[in-house]
Every structure is written in structure tokens, then in C-alpha cells.
């Protein structure tokens, strides 16, 4: 699911930048032709409305899997504020522990949850941009069409920011890539699932 998502995100961001260029939100920001997908506006749009199906269907499958199997609950919770500060301070001093590939530190947990939230919000705002009249009840929660565009844009910026860190670090620790490709072994992270006793 990760690599399908990677392809979908690549298509969505590249074609989204092409669409953005036709009516920029920030006067100084215009994505160079070399890094957008689609030479003409219609190609950017075609790719975006093709990629959306991959992104959304794969995203639903991923989130359902993560929730149904309890993977998110085990891997991403709980997050303690103290642990978060400690991890940040370790990271800034390049003293992060990497003892266990299957254990996420507090910053990783926050980032993964944050990027998932951005992914969900970018789909919701995307629906509102695609169908502001058919989904007018949903769209009205944001205010105006232009506000929805800005939120959609900010979600993209958040995801791109995440990707810069995510990809840089994965390239720095290439072993994690190998584990991703081969699936890695089953993990006993010391937190057995306990069924409610009633």
C-alpha cells in the first residue's frame, strides 16, 4: 500500500502544481514547468482526476487496515508530551536512538499522525473543490471556495514538508528501505492486545 500511495502522491502533487499555476494563490510562487506533471492544463487536470482514484481507494484500504488490525493504536499511541520534547531535543543533537526499527519515537508518531490528518483533509477539501455545489453542505463548513483552495494548498505543503524529511531520512538509513520492500518480519513490540474482560 505504501508504494501505491507513493505513486499516487507523486501524480497528485505534480499535477496539482500544474493546476495551481493557472491561478496562483501566492503571487511569487509559480511551480517551474520542469517539476509539474502535464504540459498543458488539461493534462494536469487529467492526471489529477486519475490519481485521485488511486490515492483515495488506496488510502481507504490503508486506514481501514490500520484501524481494523489495531496497528495504528499500537504503533502511534500513546504520545506523551514529555517524550515528544525529549525526542526533539535528542534529534537536534543527532543523538536519536535507532535501536529498534519497529519502534516509532514520539516525533515520528506525531509526524505520521499529522500527515495522515493532512491526507484526510486534502481529500475532503478536494471533494469540495471538485463539487462545491453537489457537496455544498460540506463546502460551506470552510467558508468560501477560495478558502477551500488555500486549505487544500496548505495540506499539500504539509505533505511535501513531511516527504522532504521522510525521504531524506529513509535515504540516510537505507536499511529501513530494505525492510519496507521485503515487508519485514512480524513484530512483537511487547504490547500484546488484551481483550476487554466482559
Amino acid at each position, binding site marked *: 500500500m505504501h508504494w501505491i500511495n507513493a505513486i499516487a502522491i507523486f501524480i497528485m502533487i505534480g499535477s496539482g502544481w500544474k493546476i495551481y499555476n*493557472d491561478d496562483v494563490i501566492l503571487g511569487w510562487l509559480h511551480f517551474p514547468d520542469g517539476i509539474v506533471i502535464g504540459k498543458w492544463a488539461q493534462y494536469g487536470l487529467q492526471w489529477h482526476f486519475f490519481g485521485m482514484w488511486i490515492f483515495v481507494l488506496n488510502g481507504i484500504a490503508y486506514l481501514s487496515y490500520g484501524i481494523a488490525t489495531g496497528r495504528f493504536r499500537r504503533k502511534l499511541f500513546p504520545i506523551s508530551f514529555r517524550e515528544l520534547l525529549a525526542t526533539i531535543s535528542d534529534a537536534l543533537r543527532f543523538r536519536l536512538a535507532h535501536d529498534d526499527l519497529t519502534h516509532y519515537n514520539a516525533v515520528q508518531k506525531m509526524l505520521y499522525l499529522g500527515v495522515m490528518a493532512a491526507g484526510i483533509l486534502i481529500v475532503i477539501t478536494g471533494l469540495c473543490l471538485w463539487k462545491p455545489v*453537489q457537496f455544498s453542505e460540506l463546502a460551506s463548513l470552510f467558508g468560501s471556495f477560495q478558502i477551500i483552495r488555500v486549505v487544500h494548498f496548505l495540506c499539500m505543503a504539509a505533505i511535501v514538508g513531511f516527504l522532504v524529511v521522510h525521504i531524506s531520512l529513509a535515504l540516510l538509513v537505507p536499511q529501513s528501505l530494505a525492510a519496507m520492500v521485503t515487508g519485514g518480519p*512480524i513484530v512483537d513490540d511487547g504490547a500484546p492486545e488484551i481483550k476487554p474482560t466482559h
Partner: protein
Amino acid sequence: MSIPTRTPSIFRPNGGIDQSPLSRHRRLVEDINRRNVLRGAISLGALSLLTGCDVSEDDSVQKMLRAVSAWNDRVQSAIFRPTHLAPTYSAAQVVKPPRFNAYYDIEDIKPVDGATWKLELSGLIDNKQPWTAQQIYALPEQEEIIKHICVEGWDYIGQWSGPNLRDFLQRVGADLTAKYVYFICNDDYTESIDMATALHPQTILATKYAGSPLADPFGFPMRLRTSTKLGYKNAKWVKAIEVSNDFRETFWSKQGFNWFAGI
């Protein structure tokens, strides 16, 4: 109470977590420093520059993308709510004059002479008698203060009035069970909409903007204005209307823009 064991993913081999990569590469992991971070970031930037090639125009790729676009037409048609009204606004929010847009510049428009203009009717319509501008302007009017949303991303609030399209189609005895309504324009522009959109309560043949007859750049003497389509579907300077069951590509859809273009 038993503690259930987690069902292993079929993608994961059994056995404990293999921590050997960490011990094998402990030196490297410990070696992460600012220089490496910078080097990684720079090569990532270089990698992103390699994406410039464009395969969109390749025949098979374009075929696939257009097939998805046709699928999206069907999805949009399925989620279209025939009587759901688009948000409307107050007269104080109206932008005057409206924003001009066409595939050419405003200086290149060819104004239509209202005195000689006639609206031709064809296809699945009982009474194909052409209409003069005077006759059209004498029909009951409906006013809509609605948003115009362009595929490029900009929008503005406009105040349009003119005869309701559904009423007009009924008046001329059009087959309301047909699939498409085509608009042929005084320039070489063509557009078509699905019948459900043609019959939507907020779809009108606009003849006025903010209470005055349309100015030349905005479609005088008559244009389509619907609250449920992107800007480019709203054909200006309409000179003929055709009702048909046959699908033909229109000005923008020929070039790869989505045909349904609903909002």
C-alpha cells in the same frame, strides 16, 4: 479470558523482528550527522528535477487518461442532484462588470448584431421556428446571483437573468427525455450539457447581467448560465440550440478537458 494472538499479515514472514540491519550498520546509524543530512537533502532536490519528462501526449497514455475522464463523467452524472440548489448571494456581492474569459482576448470578440440575430433550433424539438432577440427578451425572466467557478481556480459572484431553460425547452416542445442539449455559438465555440443539468432550476438562458442587457464580451444577446457547471460550459453568443441523443465532443472536450465539468 484468553489473550488472542494477532493475526500475522500474509506479507510478513514469521519469527521475531530481524534487528540485524541495525547491528550490522550500527556505525552508519551512529554516524548520522549534519553533513550527511545536507548531502541527502541536496541529492533529493536533484532527483526531483528529473521528473520533467511528460508522457501525457503519448497515444496510449492519453487514451487511458481520457477513459478515466469518461468514467468521471459517469460518476459526476450519478452524484448530480437534479433539484439541489447552488448557494446564492446578495446583490451587494455582485462583481461588476463580470470577469471576461474566452480562448481569445477581449479585443478579438466579434460582437453580435441583436437586430439580425436569430436563435435556430434543431434536433428533437417539435417547434423549430427560429427566435428573434426581441422574442427571447419578452419571455418571463428568472434572476440568479450565483458563483462562476473557472477550471483554473478563480471565481466571482455574478447576477444573471433571462428565461429558464427548462421552461424554454418545454415551450418549444423539446424531448426532455433526450440525453444532451447542444449550444452552437457565434464564434466557433460549441458546448453541450446533459439533460439533467438543462432541466436544473438554476439553468437559464441569460440575457442580462446586473439588470442590464448583456454587454458584448459576455455573450450578447444570449448565453447559457448554469449554477452546476464550470465556467467553460456556459456558452456565450449562442446562435443555435440542438437537442440530441448522440454524443459529440465539444470545443474543450476535444482538447482533453472533462466533458461533464460539473461542480
